[in-house]
Each structure stands twice: as C-alpha cells, then as structure tokens.
C-alpha cells in the first residue's frame, strides 16, 4: 500500500486511522498505554487523598484556606472546550477537510496554552503564600498530582503543534492519520484526568 497516496473526500476511508497495519497497531497500543496511564494517575490520586492536609504540626494551609474555585472553574471550562474543539478537528479528518482540521487543532492549542498559563499563575500564587513544594507532605502531593497533569498538557501541546507544522504542506495520508488520531485521544485523556482533579482535589477540598 502506498502511504503517500493522495485521497479525495470520496475515496477517503471512514476510519483512516485504522486502515494500515501500523495504524491499527498504533490505535490499540495507544489505548493500552492510556490504560497504564490511568493506573499511574490512580496511584497519584490515592497518595494525594492519603496526604491531604497533612503537614508539620500547626500547619496553617489546608484545602479550605488555599483553593479558590472561580479560577479553577475557568480552567476547567477552558480545558473542556479544548476537548470539544479537538473533536471537531477529528470530525474534519473523517470528512477529509484538512484545513478545517488544522484550524480546530490550532484553536485547541490556544485553549491549552491558556489553561497552562492559568495553572502557572495558580502555582505561583501558592508559592508566594509560602505553600511551596517542600512545605509539607500535602504540598508535595498536591504539586506532584496537579503538576504531573500539567506536564501531560505540555507534552500534548508540543505533540499537536509538531503535527500541525510538520503536515501543514502535505495534507492527509494514511501515514499521518493515525498520528493525528492518537494525539487527539491523548488530549481527551488529559481532559478526563482534569475532571477528576477538579472534583477530587478542588471541589471535595473546598466543599467536602
């Protein structure tokens, strides 16, 4: 099979990411990888719950005094929207509309950057309050859990940007379709993890 073959919207397959053997393998392998990532985050969540609000005796920080929901709520909305825009991008990939896909991926990247900026602002704010990484077991667990998610966002952004730039002049092929598809899967995963962070860390922290 010629991987560089040019397709038209009529000849373009329904699931371009799973036509070649490489594509099929990538698709399945990536799902499995996400399964492992889920266990990874589960371990981080469990640790966070065990160490929540724990620190040296007389520590003044707690989830109640620290977190402010409005900011986190905005971050959540931004990231959820970015998941939606990446769905649009995949929709355009199915319909062989390359420009549309690149555009929506571009919007996804912008939203992701906005999220990241707010997260950096948030972390910076905590550190200024004296809640730094080494302050307590609580601070270590919090920054590690949320920070690991943040690193995933960075990786996702770099990955999507690379794809956009690398393929800008080439259009679709059965070679790059699986790459786009897995990148969007990754982005969804990041989003789902954030929903759990929002609930478990912030909502349950402030309300519960």
């Amino acid at each position, binding site marked *: 099979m010629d*991987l560089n073959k040019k397709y038209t919207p009529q000849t373009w397959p329904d699931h371009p990411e799973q036509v070649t*053997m490489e594509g*099929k*393998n990538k698709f*399945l*392998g990536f799902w*499995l*990888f996400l*399964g*492992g*990532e889920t*266990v*990874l985050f589960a*371990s*981080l969540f469990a*640790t966070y719950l*065990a*160490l929540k609000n*724990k*620190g*040296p005796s007389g*520590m003044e920080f707690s989830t109640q005094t620290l977190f402010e929901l409005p900011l986190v709520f905005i971050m959540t909305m931004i990231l959820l929207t970015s998941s939606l825009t990446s769905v649009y991008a995949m929709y355009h990939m199915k319909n062989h509309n390359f420009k549309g896909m690149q555009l929506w991926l571009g919007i996804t990247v912008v939203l992701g950057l906005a999220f990241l900026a707010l997260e950096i602002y948030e972390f910076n704010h905590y550190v200024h309050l004296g809640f730094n*990484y*080494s302050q*307590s*077991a*609580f*601070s*270590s*667990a919090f920054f*590690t859990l949320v920070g690991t998610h943040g690193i995933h966002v960075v990786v996702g952004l770099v*990955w999507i940007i*690379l*794809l956009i730039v*690398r393929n800008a002049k080439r259009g679709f092929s059965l*070679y790059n379709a699986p*790459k786009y598809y897995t990148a969007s899967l990754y982005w969804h995963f990041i989003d789902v993890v954030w929903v759990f962070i929002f609930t478990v860390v912030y909502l349950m922290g402030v309300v519960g």
Partner: protein
Amino acid sequence: MSSIAQKKGFGATLWDYLTTVDHKKIAVMYLIAGGLFFVIGGIEAMLIRIQLAKPDNDFVSAGLFNEIITMHGTTMIFLAAMPILFGFMNAVMPLQIGARDVAFPFLNSLGFWLFLFGGIFLNLSWFMGGAPDAGWTSYASLSLASPGHGIDFYAIGLQIAGAGTYIGGINFLVTIINMRAPGMTYMRMPLMTWTTFVASALILFAFPPLTIGLFFLILDRMFGGNFFDHTMGGNTIIWEHLFWIFGHPEVYILILPAFGIFSEIFAIFARKRLFGYSSMVFATVLIGFLGFMVWAHHMFTVGLGPTANAIFAVATMAIAVPTGMKIFNWLLTIWGGSIKVTVPMLYALAFIPSFVAGGVTGVMQGAAPLDYQLHDSYFIVAHFHYVIVGGVVLAILAALHLYWPLMFNQMLSEKLGKWTFWFFFIGFHMTFFIQHFLGLMGMPRRVFTFGADQGWDLFNLISSVGAFFMAAGVIILVVNIIITAVKNVPVGNDPWEDGRTLEWAIPQPVPFYNFKQTPLVRGLDTFWIEKQEGNKEGMTYAEPLSDIHMPNNSFIPFMMTVGLFIAGFGALYNGEKEWAVPVLVLGLAITVASMAVRSVKDDHGFHIHKEDLMNEKGGK
C-alpha cells in the same frame, strides 16, 4: 541477505545491533545482557553465602553485606530474570503466532536499550560511592535514612529500566492481539504466547505504581519532597503499598512465562497434546487477575487490622487453586505419553516438585497469624527461592536448551547439559531446603552474621556448600555454550524432531523476514497436525508469495536512552554539584530531540521483492 550479513566486519556488525529492530536480534541481546547480569547477581549470591558459611565471619563488613544483598535481589529480579524471559518471548512468540515481527519494532529496540542502560546505571553505583543498601524492597523508612547516593542509583536506574519493561509489555500485547496469522484464534494460541500475553497485561497495570513509588523516592531524596517523611506529614506505608501493588504482580510476571515454557516442554517431550488446554488458559488468566488482589500479604505485620488481613489471606490462598489446576494438567500431560528425557524435560520434571514445595510454603505464609511467626525470617527466603529458582530459573535454564537451536541454529550438548542440571538441582535443594528450618529456628533474614552459640552453624554451612554446587552447574553451562559456539554445527529444521507449534516449522537459520508467506493455522499444535498429515513443508500458507514490507533500522532508540542515562546523573547530583541541573537539562534535551526527529522524519520502511524471495529459496 543472510550470506551478506556474515561477511560484515566488526564495526558493521556492531552498528547493525545498535540499530536493529529485528525481534530475533533483540532477543539475542536480551539473552546476552540478561545473562551477564545473572552472572553478576550470582557472584553477589556467592559472596552472601561465603559470609554466612560460619558464625561471626568477617569476610565482608555489615555495611557492604547490605549493599550486596540489595544488589543481588534487585539485579536478579529486574536485570536477569525478567530480561532473559523477555529474550525468549521476543525470540519465540512472534514466530509462534506466525507474525512478521512484533507490532512496534522500533519500540522493541527502545525497550531493550532502556533496560540495559538502566541496569548499567544501577551497577555504576558500585564505583561511584557505594551501592544501595535498603534491600530490593527499599522500604522508605530505611531508604530515606540511607546516606550517600546508593538509593538514588536504585531509584533512577529502576525508573529507566522499568520504562523499558513497560514499553515491551504494550508491544507484546498489541502483537498478540493484532498480528496473529489467519486461523490462529485465541484458543489456538500456544501456552508460551498465552502466558506472554497475560504477563504483559500484568506489566501494563503493575509498573505504573512502581513508577510513581520510585518518583516519590526520587522527589523525597533529591528534590525536597515530603511523601514519606512523617515529621512533615508524610507516611512511609504509602511506599510499601505502591511497592507491593507492583511487587506481587511482578512475581507472576516472572512465573507465568515460566509456566508457558514448561507447558511447551511437557507437550513436546511427552509427545502428546497438552492436557486440559482450555483450563490452562483459564488458570493463567485467573492467576493474572488474582495476582492484583493479594499485595497486602506482604504487609500482614504492618498493622492494617484483622479485617484487611483476613481478606488478603483468603485471596492469597485462593491463588493456590488455579496454580494447582496447572500442576495436575502437567502431570496428566506426562501420563501415558511417550516420554523423551532430554535436558529441557529434565528441568520440567524437576520443576514440579520444587515449585509445589514453594507453593505450599506460600499458602502457609498466606495464613496471616502464622505469618507473624514466619515474616522476615529465613523461612521467607526459602519460600521465594523455591518459587523463583525452582520455578523461574529452572524454566530459564530449560528454555535455554530448548530454544538454543531456534535462536542460534546449534544444539547445546545434552551430556554437559545433564551435568549442569544435576549440579544445579542438587545444589538448589541443598541451599534452600534447610533454610526453612533456619527460619523456624528464629534466624532473621538480612543479617550479616550470627553467633556461634545460636545453633545455626551447621545448617548455614550446608546451605553455603549447596551454593557452590549451583555455581559449578552454571560454570559447566558456560563451558557448554563456549564449546557449542566454537564447534558451530548447524542443526537444520525441527531440531527436537517433535516440535508442535509454528516456531519449529520455520526453516533454519530463520530468515530475517521470518515466514516467506503467512502461514495458515489449522488447529492447536498446527505444525504437529501438518506433520501427521505428511506435509513435508510443515506449513499451509494463507497467501501467495508476494512482496514483504519491513521496518527500517534506527539509531534513535539508542540516542533516546543515552539522553535519559545522562539526565539520570544530573538528577542524582541535584543540589550537590553545580553542573547537575545543566546535565539534567542536556540529557532530557537529547531524548526529546531524538523523539522529535522520530516524529518529524517519515519512516516508511522498505520492501523485499517477490523475485528476491524466490532467489533466496533457489540459492539455499
């Protein structure tokens, strides 16, 4: 192609191996590297037994003793047993399912290099200020207090090697799900493939908790974290949970492939279909599942409370049921077979009583109240050596003889093989059987010496003598390998004459593209079926001869690994040397840049043309 390969100079061969993505070559590299680590771990074991041969010995100091036992355990589990099994899986599984290669040849190579460099990193600790000394379990209360950089080498080295294992696991899973030849349904997969499958699934879910645990250790020791420091609100039990949520599945990651190897051997040399095939598959899956439910049996004495202890005790004993099923199936496979007692079969026969002994002590320890007595004594040491040496190592030695002709187109000497077997088998029981009693008599594990008045002299001496028997067996094995390699007599197809599955149907030496045409699988033990029906070629094909698509070699996996290796030193000396952070950044940059090159540079592979394939046949 194969004839060209032989004329290459040393440089070209080296480059070939540094860049190869061929599962057969990667298998050889796993075998060699794992074998070297096995020897290193073995030397450490001998030092332990020499130190304990007599009371009040001062052969090594207490501190050095701790380093030796830690490195012995860590090396044997992570750098010897697992990689050697990975070698056999790589060599055999793709052929067994009739695949061209694994699903991700590039990642296969990456996984190998990560393992190797992780192992080298860990072992460099010996020359850079001292090895880790908190045991292979590295409990946080010990490891946080350990001075020097030993523990840092442990945490970072295992992190690198572990990433390699994780990648390998995903690779095998996808290979088995997606790349089976036509007709190879799940219930026709040979047991070696099934156990590879389940062990890989265990890797997928067991390694992330270890990764997180090691990260916490790295963060606590090098980057100001407080996960395990109770004065800062931390909790050292978190490490124990994370470690054992990984650790118990890990023992099944080791033993399941061993079960697979023995299942192949019993069927081949009893010349009978494996008894109870479907219950074997069921038992394998069930063991894999239950393996995740029992980790706290390593923590009975921590004080989790009677309810938790009771639940984990019952779950632990439940595992004995599927394991027992397997034992009976093997016995019934031999029953009424026309048995050939070759070296692999000898190991298989010896495995059954040895492993059962280890299983029985396992159930004893699983009884929580009794474990309060047994815990941290030599009884535990005896138990896990019965399962690991009596199970995994016997399987590795058996597989070495069984698959040697498949991997190298030569046969190891049966005569020397039997010498190895008897030395090893007798030495093994001599070393470890008596340790049960040492444990019951109160000797704690991980002590560097004991007093002459404690009544443990004789048993310890016997145990140490046994260790020398095992060492003698291994030395004979090395001699056997050297002699065989020098003689270099090719064996040809179906070297054991009774091969049953696809890997034995392939011509020798195995062409680099594996099967010229994809085989059609017509039942369990397809090769046996074809032979019974008088098919000279041993295979029915699913497709006409056509071009074969192959992946390109790549140097990128090596570069990615080197980057992480360099970054490891940066992390290790963080806050101590001013070059630490730049080195950390440099290393990570090399890795990330290599990944970017991989993702930006297209790699479509190449084709072997039909005409060349036909010539190859004519030329042979």
